[in-house]
Each structure stands twice: as structure tokens, then as C-alpha cells.
């Protein structure tokens, strides 16, 4: 039971890990992209559109080529979230619009866009239920190592996920090393801390902001793709993604802007997100009714608030948000 809980917590945590890693990369450049929920949503629906096109182009779904079945949705998803990142960057970096307003607009826009295309696809299929199923594509996305099933709890906890889950962990580790060890990472952090300083040191601030926001969006978008293709086995239904995007942003704060912490953090958040379903199993002697379960759903957010409080009390400078987070930079500002 514990094993299946951990397994579900990790499944639940992977989209958050993608989102948080993407948002960390973005925020390190000083761009507070509150559009992440929208970006992840678009990342999901773009993958769905790609998969739908591919599946429908086949005379018979059993003829699907595994490589194409993965690459087409993957590239569509990356492209979709890249476009969202570009819109955000253009508005905030080039036009210097307010980042909060832009971010919220991107979220609203992204969710609306996703529901529009999602709804359209459902109409095209003419399904009885308001959802669209892409089980062929999903099969490839969620394929895990065949021998994992024979390895007991170890297999279930560590080996039983689709490739995107491992990709999420690898991206988080690589991002962490990139920020800490490379010169480009150093420059990026400087842009987020003090863009005027970075500029005076010869760092192209706008380019860094664009790059990090776009790459960050693409990483976050993969979270949406993972959610629909693996977590829910290829079934898209409008608004099914829930508040995972906001949870990813909360996770960024929780991990004090460190992608390697986000790996553990995302599993913890994933666990807190679903623990209300497991309470009756873990503690059969305490009856938990529906309303209590609703209360327990607050857990990830409460933990984030607690971390915020503890962090601001400890006042360690390294654990604070990038200093110029949320501020637009203009060289000739006086």
C-alpha cells in the first residue's frame, strides 16, 4: 500500500517537477512567469493535437510507428509552449509590460486555447463522453521497462514510469548543474539578480531573458504533455489538468529556486496532493469524511506558506528570490 502510494505520488509529482524546473529557469532571469499554468495547458493540448493528427492519418492504429508516435506529439508540445514563452517574452522584455498582468493573461489565454481545441477535437470525433482518447500514443509514452513488473517494490517505485518521468529528473539535475557550475548559468543568475550589473558586464540581458523564458516554457510544457499522455493514459478532457500549474509555481518557492530540491519537493507535493485518498487506508481507525478530505487538499499550499515564513525568518540571502524578479529592465532608465 505504501509502495503504491509512493508510486502514485511520483506520478503526480512529475508534471509539477517539469513546471517547477521550467519556472525556475524563467525566474532566474528575473521573469516571473505566472503564465506557467497556461503554458503547461498549451503544452498538453499541442501534444494532443499532434497525436490526434498522427493517429488519424493511419489507416489502422496498430500500424503506428513508435518513433513517430512519440516525436510528433513531443515536438508539437514543445512548439506550443515555445510560442507561449515567446509571447510572454515579447510582451515583458521587448514591450516591458507588467509581468504579473502578462503572466495572468497568458494563463487565461492558454487555458482558453486548450479548451477551445480540446472541445473542437471532441466535436470532430463526436464522442459520447466529453473527452478524447489517444490510447495508441499513450501506450508509447507510458511504456516502461518490461522487467520492472518482476522486481517487486523496487521495480514499482523506481522503474515503472514512462520515459518522460526520467527525463524530468534528468532535466532538473542538468538545470541545477547548469545554474551552479557553468558561466552561462552564472550570467543568467546575474540577469535575474541585477540586470544593470549584468548589462554593464557585457551580458546581453534581453537575449538571456528571452532564452530562459522560452526554454523554461518548453520544459514546463512537457509537464502538460506528461500529464495527458502518461498520467491519464491519453485521455484529454477539458479542465482536467486542474490547478497543477499553480502548484508548480508554489513548488518553485518551496524549493527556494533550486531544481535539484524540486525532485524531492515534487514527490512530496505529489504525495500531499493525493494523500486524502489514502487516509482511510493508512489510518482505518480514524474515519475521514469527504469534507475533511477537501481540507487536506490544502496541504501543499500550507506547506508552501510555511516554507515562505521559515525562509523569510531565516533571512539567508541565498534562499531569497532573485532580486530583480518581476521587474522589467531598461538600460536607459534614469
Amino acid at each position, binding site marked *: 500500500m505504501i509502495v503504491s502510494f509512493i508510486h502514485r505520488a511520483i506520478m503526480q509529482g512529475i508534471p509539477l517537477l517539469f513546471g517547477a524546473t521550467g519556472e525556475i529557469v524563467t525566474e532566474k532571469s528575473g521573469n516571473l512567469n505566472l503564465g506557467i499554468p497556461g503554458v503547461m495547458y498549451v503544452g498538453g493540448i499541442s501534444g494532443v493535437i499532434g497525436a490526434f493528427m498522427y493517429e488519424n492519418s493511419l489507416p489502422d492504429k496498430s500500424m503506428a510507428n513508435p518513433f513517430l508516435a512519440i516525436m510528433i506529439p513531443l515536438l508539437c508540445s514543445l512548439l506550443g509552449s515555445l510560442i507561449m514563452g515567446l509571447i510572454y517574452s515579447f510582451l515583458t522584455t521587448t514591450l516591458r509590460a507588467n509581468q504579473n498582468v502578462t503572466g495572468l493573461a497568458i494563463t487565461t489565454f492558454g487555458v482558453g486555447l486548450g479548451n477551445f481545441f480540446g472541445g473542437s477535437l471532441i466535436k470532430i470525433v463526436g464522442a459520447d463522453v466529453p473527452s478524447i482518447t489517444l490510447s495508441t500514443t499513450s501506450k508509447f509514452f507510458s511504456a516502461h521497462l518490461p522487467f520492472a513488473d518482476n522486481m517487486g517494490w523496487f521495480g514499482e517505485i523506481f522503474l515503472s514510469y514512462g520515459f518522460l518521468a526520467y527525463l524530468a529528473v534528468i532535466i532538473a539535475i542538468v538545470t541545477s548543474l547548469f545554474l551552479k557550475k557553468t558561466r552561462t548559468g552564472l550570467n543568467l543568475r546575474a540577469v535575474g*539578480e*541585477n540586470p544593470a*550589473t*549584468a548589462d554593464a558586464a557585457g*551580458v546581453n540581458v534581453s537575449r538571456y531573458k528571452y532564452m530562459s523564458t522560452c526554454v523554461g516554457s518548453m520544459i514546463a510544457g512537457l509537464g502538460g504533455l506528461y500529464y495527458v499522455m502518461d498520467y491519464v493514459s491519453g485521455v484529454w478532457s477539458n479542465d482536467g489538468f486542474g490547478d497543477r500549474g499553480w502548484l508548480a509555481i508554489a513548488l518553485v518557492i518551496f524549493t527556494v529556486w533550486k531544481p535539484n530540491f524540486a525532485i524531492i519537493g515534487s514527490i512530496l507535493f505529489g504525495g500531499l496532493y493525493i494523500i486524502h485518498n489514502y487516509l482511510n487506508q493508512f489510518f482505518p481507525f480514524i474515519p475521514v469524511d469527504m469534507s475533511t478530505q477537501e481540507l487536506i487538499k490544502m496541504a501543499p499550499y500550507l506547506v508552501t506558506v510555511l516554507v515562505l515564513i521559515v525562509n523569510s525568518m531565516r533571512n539567508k540571502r541565498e534562499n531569497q528570490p532573485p532580486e530583480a524578479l518581476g521587474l522589467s529592465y531598461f538600460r536607459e532608465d*534614469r
Partner: protein
Amino acid sequence: MENKAAVSFRHITKAFGSKVVANKDVSMDIMSGEILALLGENGSGKTTLMNMLSGIYHQDSGEIFVNGEEAYINSPKDAYALGIGMIHQHFKLVDVFTATENVALGMDKKTTGGAKEIAKAITEICDRYGFDVDPKKKVYNMTVSQKQTLEIVKALYRGANILILDEPTAVLTPQETDKLFAVLRNMKADGKSIIIITHKLNEVLAISDRVAILRKGEYIDSVITSEATVQSLTDMMVGQKVELDIERPEVEDKQLRLTIDHLTCLDKYGVTALDDVSLEAYGGEILGIAGISGSGQKQLLEAVAGLQEAQDGASITYIDPESGAKEELIGKSVTEIKKRGIALSFVPEDRLGMGLVGAMGMSDNMMLRSYEKGHSPFTDRKTPRDLANRVKDELEVVTPGISTPVRKLSGGNVQKVLVGREIASNPTVLMAAYAVRGLDINTSYTIYRLLNEQKKKGVAVIYVGEDLDVLLALCDRIAVLCGGKLNGIVDGRTATKEEVGLMMTNLNTEEKEGE
């Protein structure tokens, strides 16, 4: 001469927006191996001109030649490639980075090597010119002087041969200034060209070889420093004769207005910023507060103003001039203090942050202090507008209109608006923090005159300053803070600059232990 010039400006013009022309047809040379002081009032375009050389701005028209060749400087990177490094007034350092990381910023790893190589190079530069920088230290743990040193090392590391320093001594103690000047002389001996932007004429005379003067964005002339005097430079800078002596009128009847007892305050990081300070301020005198920036001046003034929480056991008593009634200020909020009729005025250090609202015009800013008066549901706009007009006329505030956002005014004019407003409220105690920071000499003297007028009216003036010459000339008594402790109070008439400078840096512990 042309071939020896390190930098030549030719017909440089730069405007911000359509109204403000920062530089107008400036042509001048900087010779190699000289220390050139760039002198001018606020808004005379010194910093703008230098920012064009360092790639922050780009000129609207005109050419810049570096070492005889026309240079196209479009970014700070281009400037570095030409061997131009600028030390900005507000340091361009990332607080959470170490010294090494700050130096490495923006540079290619292929040319710099790893952290170890950079640290080694930093040590080499330090040894060569006599600096002291710890490569592993984080910037937020550094003192102002250390940060400045790091900035210079950073520029030298990038191979700067032409070094621009914007107001480098504004935040240094006299001792630190001497150290900086020694370093600058070393660099000059090494063949580097140095441009130093400053307001402080005695420093210009002490360090520079030549002085170039800008006035209202135009290049006036340059003179050999050894042939110049404070008076001649001031006249050239202002364009008219300026009275240079600071008055110190005597007021006979001094009344106790404010007593501060055992005041201890913490800063925002929970570190003791002000440690058991006891002071008295009298009406009809100017009490100077001297100290390296960050020695607790801010906390002292803000505690009196009701903005800073004091630790237990402290007491601040205000004595009303009319009734003689005593009021305890600790534990009272700003609003309470105001409601009880306690006439405090505070000119904070951070003019556009705490003092004025940058996006609002003069009259709206005047209203901030009086909006609670009156009983109709509508605001009274006429009184503040009249006050704004009065301040504008009396203090000669240069602004397109009283509704122009004050953010768009120059530093000196912003300060005039703030001081004008505070004085207009007829205070009993007037506190001013760094009232002339960044102001040109003409405006500074206007501010000193205003403070003296208040003193003559019997106001207790508390003046936190950084220029010791001014403190010694203006103040009746000077309280010296050192690391948050009161290190003694000296008489402004008899104390010397060296004495005060020493008190700022060395806590007088022996005397206290002996007691």
C-alpha cells in the same frame, strides 16, 4: 596633442526625450596617463557623457575617438574591448555572488579559466596596486569600500586602461578616500588614464592633474589643477560668483527640545544597528551626526520619526516649545505623533522612496503632508497648490510645472521640493539625512542656508552628513557614531577633520573601560 589623447569627444549631443538635453555639442580630450577631474553641477551631464563612453547610452550625434581611432560603442562590452572601464556610483555588483563570480560575470570561460585562475589574477592585481580583496567573500558581506575596490579590480581585470570613477568618494571615510587616492596614483604611474567625476572641490585639487568643467550639458573649459583654486573652479562651474563660506549663526537662547535615552535598534536583518545611544537636541542649534554610512544614522532618525521600533529600555522625549509639556515618542506611530501636535519634520535619505512620491507632481506631494486636515469629504487642492508654487518660487525649483511628476526633476530640485515641504510645516525638530547627497555646490548652499534659517527660528536641527568639511562648518555640535555606538560628541567650532574621521572608525573603548 591629438595623438596623445586617450579619448576624444567631438560634438557629442545626447537628449532624453524631447525636453531634456543632457549633453550639447561637447568636444573634449582625455590625455593618456593623466587624472582628469570632470566637474559640474547636478544635471550638467557629467555622468551622461561618461555613460556614453562606457556604452550604457549612445550619443544622438557626434563622434568618440579612442586612442585616435573612431570608436563605435554600442554596449558595455564594446567599451571593455576598447579598454574602458567605469566604476558607477551605484555599484554594479551582484550581492549574492562572491568577488570571483562578480569578476567572472559576462566573460568567456576560455579567456578567464576557472575560479582558481580568476582568484589568482585578482590577488595579482591587488598586490600590484595595493588593494585588498578576498576572492571568496560574498558581496553582501562587504563594506562599501570593499565593494568599490572590487569594482576597480573588476575593471582592471578586464584590461581597462581608461578608468572612469563616478563620485567614488561619496560613501567613503576620509581615511578610505586617502587609500583610494593612493591606489589611483599607482594606476596613473602605471600609465592608465583616469577620469573622476566629483562634486568635492578639495578632492579635485588633491588628486587631479587637470579639471574639465561642464555646465548645463555644455563643455566650458579645462584648467590645469595646479593653477586652480576652489573659488575659481566654483565660479566656472556655476557661471557666476558664489559665496563659499558656510554661515554658523549664534543663537543665544537654546532650549532642550528632544532627549534620546539609551536607544537601541535592530536593523531589518535583526542585527543591532544602534547600540545604547543617548543624545540631546536643542532648539537654535544644528546637531550634526557623523559616521560611516550604515553606522545607525538611519535607525536613529527613523526611531525619532516613529518609523523604527526601539528595543526595551529606550526613551525619546519631546519637549513642546509652547507648553513645555513632555511627550514620550517611543511606541507612537507616525500618525499618533502627528495627531498629538508634535512638530517633527523628517527629510529622509531616500528622497523618492520615503520622502516623495515620484509619479506625483509637486502639489500632490505637498498634499501628502496635509491631506488629513480639513473636514469636508473632498480634498483641499488649493492650499497645497499654493504651497507648491511658493516653494517653487522661493527655492528656485526648476520644473516644467507643479504638476510634472517629481521623478522627472533632477536630484537637486527633488531635494528642494522635499526640504521646502518639511520646512513649511513649521517644525520644532527638523531632521535631515544626507540632505545634500548628490547635489551640486549651488543647491547645497541653498540647503545649508535653509537649515540655518530654521536654526535661527529656534528649531532643533539634526543633520546627518557625510562631508566632514561641511559638518564642521555648519554644525554647533557633532555626535559621532561608530558601529552603532555613540563615540563621543565634539564641538563643531574646535574639532578637526582628522579627529572626527578617527572617531568614525575607531571605537573609543579605553575611556569607557577606564571609567
